[in-house]
């Protein structure tokens, strides 16, 4: 793809290609037609592919996911847009009890190639229920695949891979990065569930995903001025997790810090820390540390900066890891 694309545009192009490549692909969601979605991710697609394939739905999230399941059973490949992270909960049963489990309940006789796109996480000064990081709920549910890109290239190719997957995929889009631009390569260079080393280093490993990758890259750049070489890994896939890439890095650096916006308590970082401790115990120079949101409802936007991990909080954790 020529030139620099925003993540939003890269996603839009991925949806366009998916609609072009497979006549069974349909998009469903609130306001995704004429409006192009509240974030314009589906901009222009209904005009080009028609109301039959880019479907404005009634305002009912359980209904959207539930009917998407029915369409999948009929042989369609629905891509659902949930308008905001905090609006997915009405669809929770349809996602975790129906979508996630139906393939197993049918002993493999049916496939559920449904992609659920959710703009997630904070940092945009939004009102309540528009800034949540609920990845752990979904990652904790066997039967779902959960992925989240951090760059335009990954946004494009991971979405195409997610739609092509025969399993249900929760596709989390870091909404505050929608307008960040980047080069989109001509092909996917990694599998959907591979982690990516986005910055090599030797002194400690920062593990992040989605919106926090950028924060960690900035932290690594700042640390370099102090002579610290931090490796940054973009996890990309939250289930399955590419532990091989993490393990290789952490065994080499001896230190790891996991960074996410979601509350630290029982978040992805808890699982990563536990597994890395098990796998890299004799290589660790410090406990695996975690930086994330607090165990509190996502705060009003005027204080969200205090809630969200930033460069300083990441570097503070790195200092603590290196001090052991």
């Amino acid at each position: 793809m020529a030139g620099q694309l925003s993540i939003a545009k890269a996603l839009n192009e991925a949806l366009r290609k998916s609609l072009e490549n497979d006549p069974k692909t349909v998009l469903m969601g609130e306001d995704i037609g004429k409006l192009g979605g509240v974030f314009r991710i589906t901009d222009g697609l209904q005009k080009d592919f028609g109301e039959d394939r880019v479907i404005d739905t009634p305002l009912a999230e359980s209904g959207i996911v539930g009917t998407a399941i029915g369409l999948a059973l009929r042989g369609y490949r629905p891509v659902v847009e949930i308008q905001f992270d905090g609006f997915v909960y009405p669809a929770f049963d349809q996602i975790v009890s129906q979508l996630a489990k139906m393939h197993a309940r049918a002993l493999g006789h049916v496939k559920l190639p449904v992609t659920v796109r959710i703009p997630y996480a904070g940092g945009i000064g939004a009102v309540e229920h528009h800034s949540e990081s609920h990845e752990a709920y979904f990652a904790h549910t066997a039967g779902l695949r959960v992925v989240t890109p951090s760059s335009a290239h990954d946004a494009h190719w991971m979405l195409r891979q997610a739609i092509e997957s025969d399993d249900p995929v929760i596709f989390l889009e870091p909404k505050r990065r929608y307008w960040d631009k980047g080069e989109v390569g001509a092909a996917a260079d990694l599998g959907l569930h591979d982690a990516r080393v986005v910055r090599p280093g030797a002194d400690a490993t920062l593990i992040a995903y989605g919106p926090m990758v950028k924060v960690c890259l900035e932290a690594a750049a700042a640390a370099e001025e102090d002579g610290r070489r931090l490796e940054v890994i973009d996890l990309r896939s939250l289930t399955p997790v590419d532990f091989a890439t993490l393990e290789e890095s952490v065994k080499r650096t001896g230190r790891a810090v996991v960074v996410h916006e979601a509350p630290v308590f029982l978040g992805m970082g808890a699982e990563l820390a536990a597994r890395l401790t098990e796998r890299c115990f004799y290589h660790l120079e410090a406990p695996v540390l975690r930086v994330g949101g607090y165990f509190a409802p996502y705060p009003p936007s005027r204080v969200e900066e205090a809630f969200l991990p930033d460069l300083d909080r990441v570097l503070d954790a790195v200092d603590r890891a290196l001090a052991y």
Partner: protein
Amino acid sequence: MTVKSTARARKKAAPGVPDTLRATGTDAQPELVQLLTPEGERVEHPDYPLTTTPEELRALYRDLVLVRRFDGEATALQRQGELGLWASLLGQEAAQVGSGRAMRTGDYAFPTYREHGVAWCRDVDPLNLLGMFRGVNHGGWDPNEKNFHLYTIVIGAQTLHATGYAMGITKDGADDAVIAYFGDGASSQGDVNEAFTFASVYNAPVVFFCQNNQWAISEPTTTQTKIPLYRRASGFGFPGVRVDGNDVLACLAVTRWALDHARSGNGPVLIEAFTYRMGAHTTSDDPTRYRHAEETEAWKAKDPITRLRAHLEKEGLADEEFFAAVDAESEQLGLRVREGVRSMPDPDPTLIFDHVYSEPHAQVDEERAEYIEYAASFEAGENH
């Protein structure tokens, strides 16, 4: 007196909209469609004409008897410890057989966990239904083989799947239709109301078949609704009709009409089959705690099998030989089910890891390998 609904306004070549469907105003009296009285008298209904051959009537009788026998056998097997649980359909045979036999081969049913009679009509092996109640799987049959979806336990969730499937039929330009089964309790669920909305605005070919068996475990229908359930449809813009759920002929005629209405591009229909759950909610339930025996006794007089048999006998449409043959077949079915369940093997524990995903998943694969290694360590005697 005409109801202007979206679905009606869009109606193409209508296969005839019965007058009963117009009784959707607040002052209208609910009309129960009945073609066979509890005494076995065949009565006509102007909106739902039905012609049946003696063979068809005998086949329906056979269905009802065999379905009841299968259900009774399953209850007995639960009492004997062969099944963990059973949800009996006792009393609802006519609603299920009537609607099930109204379906064409290409039509698709989305059941709750009690539609054993519909499964029978779809030619699903009864043993398949028992697997999940025995605990050897969570269903496991191929839904597309007989167009009969897996049982759904979360109340009302399947009505959305049915609606989505029906939306797909419309996209395919096919003339199939879907039945979504649910109960009076489910009518309170958000999913059911969302399914009504989606089906209505997309004009989806789905028939919502509500078996109002009067009880949602211990809660009477009055806990769910203040109006007859079939009238809920008018608020969503499609026809609703209440049918005698213990009358197999009425259920057949009304469902056949509704499916044709839906498949002809006229959108959804709600059927409320007014029936009664003669048994407990499941084998774990104790209805003596919340309902009176007199109520159950009163419904016994409306039994679906008794009335069809009375009709067949009265009209001389079946002889003793026929009834004896059905009874013998019923015994055979009971035997087959009993033996089939008792010889149903437990699955290998690695079933836990099968089909979690359709494509490889690192964590599932890793845990499967760990389990196999752990289990093998016992066989090798290492952990003793």
